[in-house]
């Protein structure tokens, strides 16, 4: 695992061979126990990530098969969504799934609250935060079902041009 030669182009990522090689190097560096997959602990060994409130969510989204670990394929595919060549929809989908914790295709009030809670920590009290969440949901929710679908999410977030922002150089 983590051997770049075993993952040629057909990984259907947006990366070319060189980039995959570099990511493979990175992967092996992160993979402290050489298990071939990255656990949350291994992610948290990075000082930057330790201070990132959303690290848990990001790792969860990377971890597409839900086994709690990110293997090399998931790693590449996850990072691939942030490639310059990534499609807008892909990036939006990633952002959406950060909120959509139960992966049911909807952001519920509770999910939004939880994600925001991670982001505000103790800076904001729950009362105002809940108000905020309510307000957000009301504004976003076009069809009135009390939760936000991907389409509704795109309608608002789409014009933020996040496909231009959610780009990482590899």
């Amino acid at each position, binding site marked *: 695992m983590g051997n770049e030669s075993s993952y040629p182009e057909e990984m259907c990522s947006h990366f070319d061979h060189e980039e995959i090689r570099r990511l493979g190097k*990175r992967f092996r560096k992160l993979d402290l126990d050489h298990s071939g997959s990255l656990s949350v*602990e291994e*992610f*948290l060994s*990075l000082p*930057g*990530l*330790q*201070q*990132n*409130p*959303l*690290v*848990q969510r*990001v790792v*969860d989204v*990377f971890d597409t098969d839900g086994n709690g670990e990110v293997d090399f394929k998931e790693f590449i595919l996850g*990072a691939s969504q*942030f490639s310059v060549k990534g499609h807008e929809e892909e990036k939006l989908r990633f*952002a959406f799934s950060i909120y959509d*914790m*139960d992966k049911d295709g909807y952001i*519920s*009030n*509770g*999910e939004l609250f*939880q*994600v925001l*809670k*991670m*982001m*505000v920590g*103790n*800076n*904001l*009290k*729950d*009362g105002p*935060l*809940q*108000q*905020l*969440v*309510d*307000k957000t949901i*009301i*504004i*976003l929710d076009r069809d009135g079902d*009390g939760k936000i679908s991907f389409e509704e999410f795109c309608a*608002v*977030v789409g014009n*933020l041009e*996040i496909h*231009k*922002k*959610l*780009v*990482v*150089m*590899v």
Partner: protein
Amino acid sequence: MLHVALLLLRLPLVGAGATEEPTQEPRAPGDPPPGLALFRWQWHEVEAPYLVALWILLASLAKIVFHLSRKVTSLVPESCLLILLGLVLGGIVLAVAKKAEYQLEPGTFFLFLLPPIVLDSGYFMPSRLFFDNLGAILTYAVVGTLWNAFTTGIALWGLQQAGLVAPRVQAGLLDFLLFGSLISAVDPVAVLAVFEEVHVNETLFIIVFGESLLNDAVTVVLYKVCNSFVEMGSANVQASDYLKGIASLFVVSLGGAAVGLVFAFLLALTTRFTKRVRIIEPLLVFLLAYAAYLTAEMASLSAILAVTMCGLGCKKYVEANISHKSRTAVKYTMKTLASCAETVIFMLLGISAVDSSKWAWDSGLVLGTLFYILFFRALGVVLQTWVLNQFRLVPLDKIDQVVMSYGGLRGAVAFALVILLDRTKVPAKDYFVATTIVVVFFTVIVQGLTIKPLVKWLKVKRSEHHKPTLNQELHEHTFDHILAAVEDVVGHHGYHYWRDRWEQFDKKYLSQLLMRRSAYRIRDQIWDVYYRLNIRDAISFVDQGGHVLSSTGLTLPSMPSRNSVAETSVTNLLRESGSGACLDLQVIDTVRSGRDREDAVMHHLLCGGLYKPRRRYKASCSRHFISEDARERQDKEVFQQNMKRRLESFKSTKHNICFTKSKLRPRKAGHRKKDGVANTETTYGKPPRDLGFQDAAAVVLTMESEEEEESDSSETEKEDDEGIIFVARATNEVLQEGKVSGSLEVCPSPRIIPPSPTCAEKELPWKSGQRDLAVYVSSETTKIVPVDMQKGWNQSISSLESLASPPCTQAPTITRLPPHPLVAEEPQTPLHQFSDPRPSFTFPPSLAKAGRSRSESSAEIPQQQELQPLMGHKDLTHLSPGAANRRWHIQFNRSGQL
């Protein structure tokens, strides 16, 4: 600074004033000394400043007149109007005085008119945007300007060689290069004037504008080098002179920037000690910035660069140090001065153009120059952009390039420089002057007029006027966090990495040195915003006569008054948001009083509240001050949370041991103990059950959400067939009846009542202010509600449960200490424990249990335990005072449970 403003126009007048000075007191020598004159006319004593003031007044009046018609100003940029006005005025002056007067003198321009504009733009420069695009800006400013200067100069020389320029224009290659260097620079004043009205998107604006500021160094160097070459004569120029010329580029630019930074440092340091003399704070800002400009000018460094860097560098610290009023004063004075200077510049430009003695026309030169500057600008932009786009994450597209090419406006700087030429050394000066005037007028008037339609036609992305909405604010923060995380994962350390290093340095040394201690006050700001939010609620409440919340107003969604605005219908609100927060009556009113204002406040709340992603620090610092402390604290908090989460899940799965400490809240613990004793054993054995949904919301993680969904649905079904009765009463009342009967009659739990106010409650400012806000809901009133809105209630209550009302954070610690005396606790006690009297919703245990028990399985318990550690002790200390601002305690009970 006022005297500076008054001095602005003095210089051009000195000539006129000086000759007449001796005749100031026209008195015949033989006259006896006059007695006390009742009235004396002393025009000459005040002439110069008087004229200056009159000119500025005239310009201001003209501005007012222009803006009387919205249509005109929306079509024609102000700068065009001012130039045209100048032309007219110049014509009048010429006709009346028979000689051209009141012209734009280079000395006046560089010493007095330019600095305020540059300071204004440097100080209010969006620093994050600027540094994000620094690479592009520097490329365009340095390479672009060099390219423009040389190509234009050489092409014009070629034009002359080809015989298209009349032979009377006596100029060699060096003269044309000199001319090219002064005509090639994009002018900050013109760009600012035009682009501020066009509102293109920020990136485009910052690139063009940043270029126009930073190219000053290049222009100055080129101009000086060429000028000295011309003066030396091309024959005498040695190879070493070229090298010196190149070296001077670095000296001038870096030197200018260094001077600016030194003064920025001094300025920041000085403002740190102005606590007792607040009144001079604005003055200091202007004086030191002006000193930076003059110092750089004195050392022949790039003065524009110096002031820009000074403004850019000092802002963060100065804003933190000076008082709020001083900040306003600085802002307005700066804007006023800049706008005043800009107005005068354009007007004087117009007036100066009238003086035909200064210029000589040559069509070939004029047309050739016009063509070449447009052509080479476009070509340069395209070439540079092509190179830059290889490195840029967000490439500049074709439309951007068109606007950038077309936005290369020339202005007063070029004019002032050309006037400065020495006619004896540059024989073609008059032709150059004429060409410069035409170029400036063409770019400002023609391009200024057409750029707006062009931008519209090309559908260039405009900048958004409105503040980002609540949603955008939230999502952008999320994206920044995501991006930071992915960057870390991928291991890419580029710009953000160095930015981070700089932040570290800034935090450790600079801010310590340059900011006063009292400037660290993130916490206060949040309270402050929250306080204001509440005050505003109170005001709107009073405005509405205060009766809205009484029985009639509140309860009947069917009442026309409430229904007039669809979204304020209580039912709607409840249904849509489906959460307890909506039961807060103030919120209902707030929503109605205007979502925009609410958004604005929320925006501030968010600004203060959200964790700052790494890459956002700088921007946040400049707009709303975020102390360095805050960051450190945040890092620690998030780190703790992450680590605890991991550690805890690890431990709980392994040994089922909990490691949270009860020392966190000694006072609360005491309470709990009492509760615990009272209810001991009643529910021992299955404590986690009722706590589950309570604490989950606060920190919940992935697994929670699934169960939430379940419980959600089960709850709704279940409640459909049952009525709800809820009782609301004033806290005071409850407090009195308190432990004895009051709560018992409503709810099985005897401990509804919040304990005496916490210390936080006493200290917090809004605490006292909140009392007037009491939401009065009589019990009769509320009883009506279920009839009208049963569905809404049911839904909201079910979601309440699933969401968990926030403040119940103490719960987890208890359940996780089985051997501890606190452990045994009646299920609902956590609900009543908080000291905060905000509306909290109490469900009888059976309800909670019932809701829980369906979705809950034995497997759930470990999960919940996993969640618990996440509530840091800070949570606990925070939440109770935090939520304390509502004085009323409302309970909801379902009759079925009684």
